[in-house]
């Protein structure tokens, strides 16, 4: 029996887990469920030895243990298959599966003949049709996911952790994995299964632990609960599948269509997404994490090129060659990954505000400090952004103020269309409000805003219309009176209403 109790994990001020608990018996398949940022991945990483919790109490068969590394985790009979894969792309399938578990042969050498037979048998068991000597990086993502699971099973663990491993898999591949899981269950292996696909829980899992905001809110048996109840535990909302896919009943008052994306396909995350944004509107993009939202926004920006579909901007079909091209056409982009994608942390606040406009002007135009200062000051004054001194380095600001700074930079350029990818990630509530206020003010002045967010409250609060993404498709579009928390949750979980009124999950691709 594996049990975790009173797990706490904090990243600075952000709480990932708080007094969370989880318990699994041999021969039990337990689902670990939760919405965005609920801490389920953190729980998996703690058991895998990748994250060290601030407070922990992990018991195996009643005896307390500590897990401080991947090695500790393996020694305790735990094997993990990760969502973002733990395979080494530059190594072969054989070497990856054997990694850390190589059979010893003569003179301390690895016994390749012995291992080859074992690995071929393993690949057969999962019906994986690939050369054991092929480099993993040359394989399709779905095959890599299968190998990731096979690798964990190969360790013959007492506890198997599967973290959203089916996200990239087809239905028949999922079935193959389920067959193996049932065999393992019969042999007495304990299994913890993390997924966002609700139908899989009822198909394979015996019990479920549900987390919300880092806390364990319920331990249930899947035979005794309904889908609606599980979603309620996860989100605090009863799902309502009424009218989540309303089409073209938009009251745009004859406003101009600014962005019109039709049937965008972008391998492997985006499948057939259509989205419209009108002038002066705030369009929200929501859903569980990893359903294609960032990929979609980056494709609109020209960072990646979609394989299918059209993007029309201000009535003209466009294909931006690069983000710089998109910016020239009056598009702004703000990323939640401030340090990586949006800010120059060592430059001053003023220079950071000015940076976007500098890219627009003539390359060798002579700039004085005063030009930069005045420009930044005007932007800061207009939108009432408290940034402290303009001369301090941007890294001296708090996360919330840094993000306001990035917003100010783009607003100052007065774009036609502003794309925001989870801009309030890790931003305090006060700064978040101010950012919302600025965005609303801009929208009222005629700017079109597309905002992707992992937080439902934010979408409901600020967006005029919300598109929900599920497995790379639009699972719901809410506006006006249909924009309720219940409907948003239903669309986020990919639930849809059948003709007879019963709710079910949208079939994955």
């Amino acid at each position, binding site marked *: 029996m594996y049990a975790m109790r009173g797990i706490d994990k904090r990243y600075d001020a952000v709480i990932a887990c708080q007094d969370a608990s989880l318990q699994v018996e041999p021969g039990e398949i337990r689902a670990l469920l939760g919405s965005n940022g609920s801490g389920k991945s953190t729980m998996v990483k703690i058991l*895998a*030895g*990748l994250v060290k919790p601030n407070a922990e109490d992990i018991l195996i068969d009643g005896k307390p243990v500590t897990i401080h*590394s*991947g*090695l500790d*985790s*393996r*020694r305790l009979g735990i094997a*993990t298959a*990760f969502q973002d*894969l*733990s*395979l*080494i*792309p*530059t*190594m072969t399938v054989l*070497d990856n599966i*054997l*990694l*850390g578990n*190589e059979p*010893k042969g003569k*003179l*301390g*050498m*690895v016994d*390749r003949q012995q291992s080859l037979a074992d690995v071929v048998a393993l690949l057969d068991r999962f019906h994986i049709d690939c050369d054991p*000597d092929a*480099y993993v*990086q*040359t394989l*399709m*993502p*779905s095959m890599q996911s299968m190998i990731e699971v096979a690798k964990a099973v190969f360790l013959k663990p007492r506890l198997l952790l599967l973290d959203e491993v089916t996200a990239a898999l*087809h239905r028949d591949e999922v079935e193959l994995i389920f067959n193996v899981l049932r065999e393992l269950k019969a042999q007495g292996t304990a299994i913890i299964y993390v997924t966002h696909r609700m139908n899989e829980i009822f198909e394979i899992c015996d019990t479920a632990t549900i987390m919300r905001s880092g806390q364990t809110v319920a331990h249930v048996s899947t035979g005794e609960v309904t889908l609606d109840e599980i979603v309620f535990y996860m989100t605090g909302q009863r799902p309502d599948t009424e009218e989540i896919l309303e089409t073209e009943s938009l009251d745009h008052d004859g406003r101009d269509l600014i962005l019109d994306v039709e049937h965008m396909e972008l*391998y*492997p995350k985006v499948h057939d997404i259509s989205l419209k944004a009108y002038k002066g509107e705030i369009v929200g993009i929501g859903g569980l994490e990893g359903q294609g939202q960032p990929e979609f926004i980056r494709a609109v920006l020209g960072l990646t090129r979609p*394989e299918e579909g059209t993007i029309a901007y201000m009535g003209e079909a466009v294909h931006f060659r690069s983000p710089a091209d998109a910016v020239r056409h009056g598009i702004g982009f703000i990323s939640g990954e401030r340090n990586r994608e949006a800010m120059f942390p060592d430059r001053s606040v003023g220079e950071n505000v000015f940076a976007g406009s500098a890219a627009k002007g003539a390359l060798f135009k002579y700039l004085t400090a005063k030009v930069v200062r005045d420009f930044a000051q005007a932007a800061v004054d207009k939108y009432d952004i408290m940034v402290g001194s303009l001369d301090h380095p941007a890294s001296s600001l708090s996360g919330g103020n840094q993000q306001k700074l990035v917003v100010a930079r783009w607003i100052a350029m007065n774009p036609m269309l502003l794309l925001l990818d989870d801009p309030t990630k890790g931003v305090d509530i006060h700064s978040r409000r101010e950012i919302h206020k600025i965005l609303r003010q801009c929208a009222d002045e005629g700017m079109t805003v597309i905002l992707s967010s992992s937080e439902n409250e934010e979408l409901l609060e600020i967006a005029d219309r919300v598109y929900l993404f599920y497995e790379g498709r639009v699972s719901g579009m809410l506006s006006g009176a249909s924009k309720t928390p219940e409907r948003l949750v239903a669309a986020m979980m990919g639930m849809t209403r059948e003709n007879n009124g019963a709710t079910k999950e949208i079939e994955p*691709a």
Partner: protein
Amino acid sequence: MIDIKRMFSRFRRTPAFIGFTLFVFVLVLNIVVQGPAQFFSTRNLNTLFSKNMPLLLTTMAMSPLLISGTLDISIGIQLGLVNVVCIMVFQEWGVSLYVGFLMGILASLVVSALCWVLVSVVRLPSMLASFSLIYIVRGVNILIMDKPQGKVPAEFYKTYDSLIGGVVPFSALFLVTVLLVWLYLMRTKFGRNIYAVGGNPRNAFAAGIDPVRVQFQAFMIKGVIAGLAGICLTLMTASGNPLQGEAYGLRALSACIIGGLGFGGWGSMACAVFGAGFLVIIQNTVYYFFNLLYRLIPGFTVTSYWQNLVSDIIIFFGLLMTIVTAKGQRETLKQGFVKQFKGGESVAE
């Protein structure tokens, strides 16, 4: 016949293939320019091996580091350290030169351990840390030996320049020994771990491997091979010079890249050998090519700087070709994905 074909197609997919192609290309060029009889004379082969063994070994010392995802450009001046330690121990302590060799390897191991601490434990960027090490090691070299001096007994350097059985260059023994030991290591657990750590340290850690420890082992192997390179340098020059060898570091790095080693988990020792071989042979070829020009065109003379310019331009194109080919391989892979993906979907429909 089919077997050979399959083996070739498998070899084509290995990282060493580009380096191998480049190496064979310049080798053929060299044989043509110099004349086969001249080139294959034992004397010429012996000179090729004995004069270039330091570079070859330095490149081989660099490769475990690159595979494990780090590097050390101060490797060059470390040859100088091994050189001065060998000579000074022999000269000042009055002991056998073999003791000097041992102390030289020990010195190389100590510097390697220092570099490991900076790069793997303290986690400084490896390029910067090893660049600063160049100046530290150079300072230590001058502390040990303030000016070029010392002599290696004749029997040592004569053995180094000799031919075993009149055929095999003695210096080639170093190469063969290192290769054999490396081949053995690659078949042990360490051989898997080093690629895992270079390929993705986080995932290696999740698989129960300690990346810091594996990098330490890589640094120790590098230390031993660099020590051997320093000994070859000592035997080749037959004297001590605290400031020599520095250029070997960057040349070894470029040889690795030309040979097809990537930064982290990609490539093999064969890449290092082919890459270094390419650098060596191209310079040889250009030298004989200019000799040919002198003979064919009466009155044609240029300084040797022109030879360096020509060979460096060719090396530049070699680097370019490696990078372009590697990019091409990746692109084909990506297109393959999309094709497979779309094929899979149409089957599902």
